[in-house]
């Protein structure tokens, strides 16, 4: 009784406090609305001075090398000031919807091309960047594949891709020489190669699915591309096919053939930890993205090579994973012109080259004008690898959603532990996926 009194009193005080906040923000909004009326309905602050203020670039590149590389690319930007905010990737992922939908969003943001960007575009949160893709715009010379990847459902372009990377089966050249083996061309050769390595006492495949269970989707994606083809793969991830189907079962049948060759300790490792056995020549091969070179000791990087995941059904177009990174701009940006100018700068061949070289990654430039002759032989091979490819996919989560990725993580790590339990795993996967698509 008596305590309820104090809380009612406090409640009034609390609502008064909220009211004060409202009044304050009202003042700010009022300040901006009397300039020339065009920003009257937004609550943005000080519209005129702000529109010419520094462009805000929100970045998820928090690893030291890529961060420093982006900073130095921005230092070369002369057309205005840029404020760079770097946020750790986990937080960034969670906050991104909030950034984009806030009334005063960061102008330019790092993120991924493909269905993730398309989803935001369909909600009206991304700035139309079509003008950069036309005439002498910064992205006009990019490939058709990149253009369609960067387009929203309505055909406008909403993304500026600046680099991408490839996936492949990575190995150490010197180790393969020691063991007297060659990269495999066909799927049967590959299985024979694994068998051979295992008899020599080498773990054929390493894969860190402990802290990073998404790595297990690499083999799933590739085997689906090889067994059912890119078209089915995309449709499956878009929810048009069931995971509990004979096609997906066929994928897991192939997957089950390599499970005995995968390092069982990988279940406790992250993808970075799983690189160590490869470097120490205890494990032979690793299906992973080109970012693997960041974790290989510098003196061993030149010894790293890769080969294509072997073809299983030669009648299907060859699909490869090539996740594309880049930038988009917020639709609510108060400085759309500044944002586009900055995006143009980031898309320039020089900027791309500078970023790739300084970030120490093995990423590929999206602009064909970048002089790639100075890049390492590995990267040259990666460029050629993707040029020979018929169709490009992104990766499980980028082709679907992070939420569907968690269903894949559960299903596939469970499958790696119990490859015989396919029926129950696929049934559960499908019902989990249905919840995602309904939600």
């Amino acid at each position, binding site marked *: *009784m*008596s*305590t309820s*009194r*104090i809380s009612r*009193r*406090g*409640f009034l*005080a*609390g609502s*008064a*406090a*909220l009211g004060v906040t409202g009044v304050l923000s009202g003042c700010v909004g009022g300040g901006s609305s009397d300039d020339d009326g065009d920003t009257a309905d937004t609550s943005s602050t000080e519209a005129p001075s702000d529109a010419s203020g520094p462009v805000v670039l929100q970045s998820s590149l928090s690893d030291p090398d890529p961060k420093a590389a982006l900073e130095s690319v921005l230092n070369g930007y002369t057309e205005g000031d840029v404020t760079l905010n770097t946020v750790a990737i*986990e937080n960034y*992922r*969670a906050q991104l*919807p*909030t950034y*984009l*939908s806030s009334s005063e969003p960061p102008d330019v943001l790092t993120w991924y091309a493909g269905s993730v960007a398309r989803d*935001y575009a369909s*909600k009206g*949160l991304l700035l139309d960047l079509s003008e950069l893709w036309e005439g002498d715009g910064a992205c006009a010379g990019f490939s058709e594949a990149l253009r369609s990847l960067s387009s929203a459902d309505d055909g406008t372009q909403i993304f500026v891709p600046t680099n991408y990377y490839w996936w492949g089966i990575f190995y150490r050249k010197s180790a393969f020489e020691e063991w007297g083996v060659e990269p495999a061309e066909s799927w049967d050769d590959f299985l024979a190669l694994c068998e051979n390595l295992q008899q020599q006492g080498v773990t054929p495949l390493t894969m860190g699915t*402990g*802290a990073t*269970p998404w790595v297990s989707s690499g083999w799933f994606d590739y085997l689906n591309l090889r067994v059912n083809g890119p078209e089915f793969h995309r449709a499956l991830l878009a929810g048009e096919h069931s995971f509990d189907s004979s096609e997906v079962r066929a994928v897991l049948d192939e997957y089950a053939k390599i499970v005995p060759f995968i390092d*069982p*300790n990988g*279940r*406790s490792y992250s993808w970075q930890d799983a690189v160590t056995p490869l470097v120490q020549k205890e494990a032979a091969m690793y299906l992973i993205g080109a970012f693997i070179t960041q974790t290989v000791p510098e003196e061993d990087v030149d010894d790293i090579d890769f080969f294509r995941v072997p073809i299983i059904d030669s009648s299907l177009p060859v699909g490869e994973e090539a996740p594309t990174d880049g930038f988009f701009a917020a639709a609510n940006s108060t400085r759309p012109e500044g944002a586009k100018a900055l995006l143009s700068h980031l898309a320039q061949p020089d900027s791309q080259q500078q970023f790739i070289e300084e970030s120490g990654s093995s990423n590929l430039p999206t602009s064909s004008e970048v002089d790639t002759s100075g890049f390492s032989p590995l990267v040259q091979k990666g460029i050629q690898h993707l040029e020979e490819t018929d169709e490009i996919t992104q990766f499980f989560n980028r082709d679907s959603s*992070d*939420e569907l990725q*968690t269903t894949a*993580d*559960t*299903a596939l*790590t*469970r499958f790696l*532990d119990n490859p015989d339990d396919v029926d129950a795993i696929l049934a*559960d996967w499908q019902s989990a996926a249905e*919840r995602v698509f309904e*939600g």
Partner: protein
Amino acid sequence: MSSTATVSGQETTGPPRRRPAAAVRRVPRVVWLFLLIPLAIELAWVFWPAINSFSLSFTRWSGVGAAENVGLDNYRNLLDDPIFRTAAKNTVIWTIGFGGLSVLIGLALAVTLNRPRRGVGIYRSAIYLPMVFSLVVTGLFWRVLYQPDGAVNSTLEAIGLDGVSRQWLADPDTALYAVLVAAVWRQVGYIMVLYLAGLKGVDPSLEEAAAVDGASAWQRFRYVVFPQLRGVNTVVFAVTVIDSLRTFDIVWAMTRGGPYDSSQLLSTYMFQQGFTLVNLGYGSAIAVVIFLLAIGFIITYLVRATRED
């Protein structure tokens, strides 16, 4: 606090009694200010968001655009969600395991280390030491121990228990318990210190008298010492229940609820849904369930505590 509350109640109902009214006049305005400001902040930053999460739990919202009202759908989905059921079961196992083990071991250590002996201070500090690490650091530290070729497995192999060694955190049968051991390892020192403080208040002459009367060590502890620890027990019980219900960081740091959701707690599942996948409605529904559980515990506890007093 309670006196001011009574006073303010008296003030508005306008009772004829004089004294409380005089007391109101004696409370300086600045004190009211000091009370009201934190209260306003608490309401705006704690209660208001909490109420919001109740209303969010009836919607479907990804943080973008308008929230779509779905009524009780989120709660209905919770009932059908196998991961939620695992998480709920694990939370019960966790509360019992974490509470039971840390209290039992903490009490045993406190009783053992209560008597002055040479080097007892070193033992006490060594056991308390893990408490100074944050849960995340504890988690990372134990993850290294649990690695396939880490200290736990090599110790087991060294003493000839090769068959027992396994991938503790990657095995769905052991992951939750492996995390539980790490959490208890850290909590034990804290409980021990609380009990050590309690044991200082135990009258040693009673125990001596019981010994003279021929009571065994167990009887002396059970019937003489333990009843005198009632006050500390209350504190320990509250601390333990609260700590086990809010457990999140150590599980997240060690397994992220994996492998395949086998070590998911309600708190980690809520975080995953709400903040990794940005299903704010569904995450809020889980948060509401956690809230109801916690409130249930606290009310039962408060009712019992007030009744005993």
